[in-house]
């Protein structure tokens, strides 16, 4: 079993449960964030709980769970994390961000293909052929007809860049 060695307080320790260790560290970081940003919230008294009472208490509990998880990772064996699909994670996230960025200015006509084509890069099995093109055109048409025209979701078909260039009815 693959094991990593770390120097901690001058002693050599082994992380035996990688997942426990990483999750514990994440808990501690998040708990520290909640505790730090909530440090000015008033605790109040137990009989009159202030806005800080509940979140700060929970923050310390989460911190505790994180600590237990980290300690446990040194004491018991657990599974290794294995490969993380960072590339796929990045592609999917980028595709969603692209949609959100393109939507107001360029409109659905550009944002939807960007989302679909970018995200398709995350699959090894994507084939860029006529079939995909037809599916994409169909999907965009479906979304415009059902969501914009049918359900009235106020998404621009053509975004604000096209103001005055295309008729207003094409934008809504």
């Amino acid at each position, binding site marked *: 079993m693959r094991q990593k060695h770390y120097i901690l307080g001058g002693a050599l320790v082994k992380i035996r449960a990688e997942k426990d260790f990483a999750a514990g560290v994440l808990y501690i970081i998040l708990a520290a964030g909640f505790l730090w940003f909530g440090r000015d919230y008033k605790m109040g008294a137990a009989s009159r709980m202030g806005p800080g009472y509940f979140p700060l208490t929970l923050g310390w509990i989460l911190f505790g769970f994180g600590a237990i998880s980290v300690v446990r990772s040194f004491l018991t064996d657990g599974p290794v994390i294995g490969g993380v699909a960072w590339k*796929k994670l990045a592609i999917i996230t980028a595709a969603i961000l692209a949609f959100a960025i393109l939507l107001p200015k360029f409109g659905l006509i550009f944002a939807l293909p960007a989302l679909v084509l970018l995200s398709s890069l995350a699959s090894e099995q994507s084939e860029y052929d006529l079939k995909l093109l037809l599916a994409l055109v169909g999907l965009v048409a479906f979304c415009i007809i059902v969501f914009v025209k049918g359900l009235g979701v106020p998404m621009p078909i053509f975004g604000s860049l096209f103001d005055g260039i295309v008729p207003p009815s094409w934008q809504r």
Partner: protein
Amino acid sequence: MELFDNLWLGLSTAMTPVNLLYALMGVFLGTAIGVLPGLGPAATIAMLLPATFAMPPVTALIMLAGIFYGAQYGGSTTAILVNLPGETSSVVTAIDGYQMARQGKAGRALAVAALASFFAGTVCTLLIALFAPPLAEVALKFGPAEYFSLMVLGLIASIVLANGSILHALGMIILGLLLGLIGTDVNSGAQRYTFGLPELADGIGFVTVAMGMFGIGEIIANLEHESTRDVSIKEVKGLWPTRDDFKRSIGPTLRGTALGSVLGILPGGGASLAAFGAYALEKKVSPNRHEFGKGAIEGVAAPESANNAGAQMSFIPMLTLGIPANPVMALMIGAMIIQGVQPGPSVMNEQPALFWGLIVSMWLGNLMLLVLNLPLIGMWVKMITIPYRYLFPAILVFCAIGVFSLNNATFDVYFMALFGVIGYVFKKLDCEPAPLLLGFILGPMMEEFLRRALLLSKGDPMVLVTRPISATMLALAGILLCLVLLPAFSKTREEAFQEE
């Protein structure tokens, strides 16, 4: 009799053309996503929630519930036909169901699965009608201390009975509770963790969290294990079970229904555990136990009746106490809040038409599944063969548009992306998103109940243990936690989820 008055009210509510139509749409969609790989009911319900805002509350809930139990049905179809359980609750169905399909008995297995599910659904509709009112009656007497303890018990029970690491489930619950507190504190008006962003003043939308963690996070996880699935399906014929099939299925169906009803009521119990339990039970008591794993009809009837019973009964804590037993119920509670219905024991008295309409619609929905789906089996089979590379971009599109339409703002789309990343990373570390969502929904409620309880007791936390009902619930939660930490019990728990 009051029971029949209630059921009659429910029937007249559920039978309006609009509600029937949406129930049909719900079960149809539910079956579809149950059949499709990599898309669960939680993600679908989150996606469709924004579309239900304009509907009357009862119609919206009827459709969302339909998606939930429809998905159980669709999941079993793929489990039997191609050995790919669409939902975790149909994992055990695949064992014997698929063997039957390989022996050319797919039609019979599907029919028995449908009939057993329908039977369980019918029984559970009656059970809910019988037991929900007294339970709500008791719950109406609950003070804030009892509610706080009840939610603690609910959260603890939901992780003890679910699969996975207890420590990480607890961690995810606390994280969910904390995330749920983001926004304006209702009591003091203070902004908490909003970083000056006006979009966060009302908190993070639970739809955004659910869609990010269940929708986007799942997609990334699925893409990681993308494989060329070889889906070859034999023609399905001979849908009518033989007399022998019937005879052999009656016992398992009855036992499965009973077990599923009991387990379903418990928070976190739900459909999956019921199905595993029922299969294990049949393996012990069935006279045909030597056939298990080789295509025994009992191995289909028992888990199918149990998972449907479990799914149905998990509505009881949601409807009577406002406590979600699983992520889908958490979403239903969220839907009720958005619709302006305060979930809890008062729903039954204040909105009887909604309450009973929903319950009766579940029975009607089960009937629709039975009548519609067996003839439509050919269509579902075609659907199984849709490759994932076409599916996931479309799911992404629907998620993005759905989350945009919550507030008609791109802000929520960014947050969905963020929660997708969080969901995937935690999933990699064996931290399940379900407890986080339960905590997220319950966070603000728990804070409010704790605040009121401590206000009434003048700051004495002992109020939680001096009031008998509250003390009992906390004691139960403590016992459950201790049990699960005992090595002997945790071993059994692991085995219960690895029934192969």
